[in-house]
């Protein structure tokens, strides 16, 4: 039954769990004694139905189901009230025994909090849906208040995602790794990029994307999200290298760029698929040590994997005054002034109306790349009215972004016209 592949949307889960706990005892009793429970009476005029969902409807795999009850009232589970009860959604199952509490599982979803709608996820194919009203003890009424059993069909193909166009000439490639190369079981794989910029997942940009490394995998379908598993490694924070552990033997590696939604570009920006031979570290030591040394660019300071920089103010889409204080938040790292080399620290850079700069070199210093070299965590800026983009990028003592880069999403703010200053002060 759990393999039903029906997932409750997380907000529903606590409610479902609470229901499950609430009826755990009565169910156990009923099983032991197999006695019929007292059923609450229901008016004959009570009517239960789906809202906006008819028999044989074609629906998407994730849908919101709404319930309508007339002639009765909704009361949360546990509250015994006349002519009242709560909804149950039966998926791909017939009516349960009417003198017993409705089971609580993936096929019988309880809405004990009195909810009148639910977001459910269905696998592609045909499914049946039916509503059943029940009283405070989850026992159906007498006569049962039940909706028509409808069949819905979930399209086999998920809706095609729009693909971001890629500029011609953009390409990704492996740095210092050729087809047929021999690498140790634990090797650093470095990704190169040309003609297109790296932006973290979630940040929409005209000509940007983030790396995906396909290990021993064919190119996935190009019109949808790249899967995320051991064979499809995502580098959603804009990382440009990975330390990869592979068992000895032959393996294939391929890079594929994905846009902000992890969908490959159109045309796809991908490297050729290369074959590598993985050998035990001892024999391969000489080969391995050669590769990183020959790498281009300067060494980047490591950052903790869970470090994140974000805007405390403003938030994405906010409207701000022409002269506003931008406040930065930093999680799992510390702030140090420029020039101070201390592990797990860096200083902020506020990028205004510019794309993410190259991550392997020092951040330029100009009016659009504001350095907070003194360790500041906020900055008052004045912008002309209109739309502007802001992005935060942390960098090390030498102004070079960390690896993986600690950068925020690029947010868009609207600067309101007029010279009035912000009334909100701390």
């Amino acid at each position, binding site marked *: 039954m759990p393999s039903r592949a029906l997932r409750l949307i997380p907000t529903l889960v606590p409610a479902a769990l609470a229901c499950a706990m609430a009826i755990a005892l009565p169910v156990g009793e009923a099983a032991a004694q197999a006695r019929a429970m007292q059923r609450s009476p229901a008016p004959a005029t009570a009517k239960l139905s789906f809202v906006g969902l008819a028999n044989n409807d074609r629906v998407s795999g994730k849908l919101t189901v709404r319930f309508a009850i007339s002639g009765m009232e909704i009361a949360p589970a546990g509250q015994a009230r006349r002519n009242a009860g709560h909804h149950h959604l039966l998926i791909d199952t017939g009516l349960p025994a009417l003198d017993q509490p409705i089971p609580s599982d993936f096929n019988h979803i309880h809405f004990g909090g009195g909810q009148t709608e639910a977001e459910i996820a269905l696998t592609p194919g045909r499914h049946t849906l039916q509503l059943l009203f029940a009283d405070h003890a989850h026992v159906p009424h007498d006569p049962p208040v039940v909706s028509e059993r409808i069949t819905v069909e979930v399209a086999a193909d998920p809706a095609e995602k729009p693909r971001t166009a890629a500029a011609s000439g953009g390409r990704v490639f492996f740095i210092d790794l050729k087809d047929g190369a021999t690498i140790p079981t634990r090797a650093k794989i470095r990704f190169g990029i040309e003609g297109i910029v790296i932006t973290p997942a979630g940040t929409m940009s005209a000509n940007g994307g983030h790396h995906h490394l396909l290990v021993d995998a064919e190119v996935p379908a190009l019109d949808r999200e790249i899967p995320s598993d051991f064979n499809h490694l995502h580098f959603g924070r804009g990382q440009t290298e990975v330390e990869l552990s592979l068992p000895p033997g032959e393996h294939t590696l391929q890079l594929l760029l994905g846009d902000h939604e992890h969908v490959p570009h159109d045309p796809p920006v991908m490297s050729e698929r290369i074959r590598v031979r993985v050998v035990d570290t001892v024999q391969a030591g000489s080969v391995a040590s050669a590769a990183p040394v020959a790498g281009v660019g300067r060494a980047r300071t490591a950052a903790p994997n869970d470090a994140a920089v974000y805007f*405390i103010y403003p938030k994405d889409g906010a409207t701000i005054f022409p002269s506003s*204080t931008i406040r930065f938040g930093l999680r799992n790292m*510390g702030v140090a002034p420029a020039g*101070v080399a201390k592990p797990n620290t860096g200083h902020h850079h506020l990028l205004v109306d510019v794309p993410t700069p190259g991550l392997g070199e020092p951040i330029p210093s100009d009016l659009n790349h504001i350095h907070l070299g003194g360790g*500041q965590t*906020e900055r008052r800026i004045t912008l002309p009215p209109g739309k502007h983009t802001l992005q935060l990028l942390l960098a090390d003592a030498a102004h070079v972004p960390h690896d993986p880069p600690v950068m925020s999403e690029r947010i868009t703010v609207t600067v309101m016209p007029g010279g009035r200053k912000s009334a909100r002060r701390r």
Partner: protein
Amino acid sequence: MRISRRSVAGLLAASCVMAGPFWATNVLAQPAKRQKPPPGALVYFHYPLDGLRVPERFTVRIGLRNMGVAPAGVEHAATGHHHLLIDTDPGPPGQPIPSDYNNIHLGNGQTEVVVTLPKGPHTLQLLLGDHTHTPHDPPVMSQKITIYVR
């Protein structure tokens, strides 16, 4: 540097804060040379705010105006590192801030910290320390706020 209305307000706030019990102790002998903060320096809470009800485990986010953050031990002009004082008053201003459960040092330059507190009312206060953990002169500190852990 332009002195704006904002920084004047900041100065006012800072001087109000230190006008309390510190004035008296300030005239005592001062062993360590204390750093002068830049004008308008102000440390404040982004979260939580005074009077807020918070869960047992929450993140304290710290804002700092007109100054920078530097890890402890790094001597750099116009910088300091944060200390979170929980249910305690600041010690003598000329002394390094003690390090214990009530005086949480953010010595790596952190600007936020996750704390877990038992249920009930608690007071929080921010105090900036220089590279030797000694408060500036005058001290850069926030108002003492009271929160309710539910």
